[in-house]
């Protein structure tokens, strides 16, 4: 008798399961068909870093203090700068990022005293050339400024 009850309860569990999947069958799909559709990136999304502009001068706010270079755990950053005529602090001339090593930890952004770098929102980064091993952030800053 116990065996019969087990068979019946087992069959019932199977039928319950089938009813549940049938309900799911008629629900809409969850998939976002990338690349035909995209999702909005949240504000704090971590893409590779980019230089921010100083609101007064319009040039990168980075003073090449190299605190980000020291803070980075993966040795991705190489910064160099020189003092411009009549300015107290240095201005950045070279900012190289090796994005193949970057772990998007944000230590560089937190270390920066001049609020000069931020996470970008770029995630479509597949490229046939190897141009993420040595990203020139100053050049990218200028390209972005020109586009605007």
């Amino acid at each position: 008798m116990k065996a019969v009850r087990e068979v019946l309860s087992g069959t019932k569990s199977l039928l319950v399961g089938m009813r549940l999947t049938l309900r799911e069958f008629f629900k809409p799909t969850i998939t976002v068909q990338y690349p035909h559709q995209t999702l909005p990136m949240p504000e704090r999304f971590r893409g590779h870093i980019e230089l921010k502009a100083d609101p007064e001068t319009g040039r990168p706010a980075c003073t090449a203090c190299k605190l980000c270079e020291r803070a980075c755990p993966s040795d991705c950053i190489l910064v160099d700068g020189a003092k411009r005529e009549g300015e107290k602090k240095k201005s950045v001339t070279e900012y190289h990022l090796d994005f193949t090593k970057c772990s998007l930890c944000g230590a560089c952004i937190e270390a920066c005293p001049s609020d000069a770098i931020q996470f970008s929102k770029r995630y479509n980064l597949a490229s046939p050339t190897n141009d993420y091993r040595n990203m020139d952030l100053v050049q990218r800053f200028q390209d972005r400024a020109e586009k605007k």
Partner: protein
Amino acid sequence: MSHLEPFLPAIRLILFLVGTVAFVGLNAAYLVWVERKGAGRFQRRPGPTEVGPQGLLQPLADGLKLMSKQLIVPPGADATLFRLAPAMVIAPALMCLATIPYSESFFAPRDLNIGLIMVFAFGSINVMAIMLGGWASRNKYAIISAARVVSQNVAYEIPMLLVVITLLMVTGTMNLNDIVRQQGPYIWDWNLFRVWQNPLMPVTFVIFFICMLAETNRAPFDMAEAESELVAGAFTEYAGMGFGVFFMGEYANIVVGCSLATVLFLGGWQSPIGLFPGIWWFFIKMYALIFTVVWIRWTFPRTQFYGLLNLSWKILIPVSLATLVLTSVVMKLPLLF
């Protein structure tokens, strides 16, 4: 038209042959599409969408991919048997389909009064084909998996045949055409609800369905091809179209099994409202059963091998024997009074 009269049987024969082969081929290809779309929808995702509208050309892409691969025969394998096995999986399915009555007039096969037995006779060749495929591969894991498939199929043929014997007692004929004609057009006239002769007829149908799933190695009874000893089981050594033909054979067997279930239990081409010819009603019922097969696959996990055999020997066989005895008693009861 009159000068075509003597050729009509020949034309019908050729049409039927071409139609059956085309039907099996198309079904095997597009059941893959149905399965993938169905799997997708059960999992709240769209399934194939890129190749053709709604992914309808996906089976073509898959077929092209399989055909472009080199057919390697492993060294030391028995080449004849190796190449024969896939053909032996498809051919019986084609033969079985020749006996199934799709409709009452044009597409009906000849009145074979052993129609039912013929289906099972050809169906058991399938088992041998998989064993041949596993054996001829000369691969340890393929042989183990093929042996498992054989024991699974043998274990599930027994309740299937017991169930069919019960049905034979109820219908009194093995002629599939007559079995369909005995059932009426409405749902309550189907064999499924013929409970005055066999009180457990719905249980009989369920057992038949489960055995059909096990015979065709479908989930949840597919451990032979899915989990078997870390590799692909009996079909490990088959590349490209050889594997493709096994796959097609599996879907052809599903079509045969569901067609048989429709004919035996669900009234075949009988229709309650004569909107379209009977063949469309047949297809509606058959595809509803195929949808259920897909549904079951994507809902349940796999049984363990001994669980599968336990189910057959300890549950299905006793129940089908009990049904058989009960049916014979119930059918003879009026004679006592």
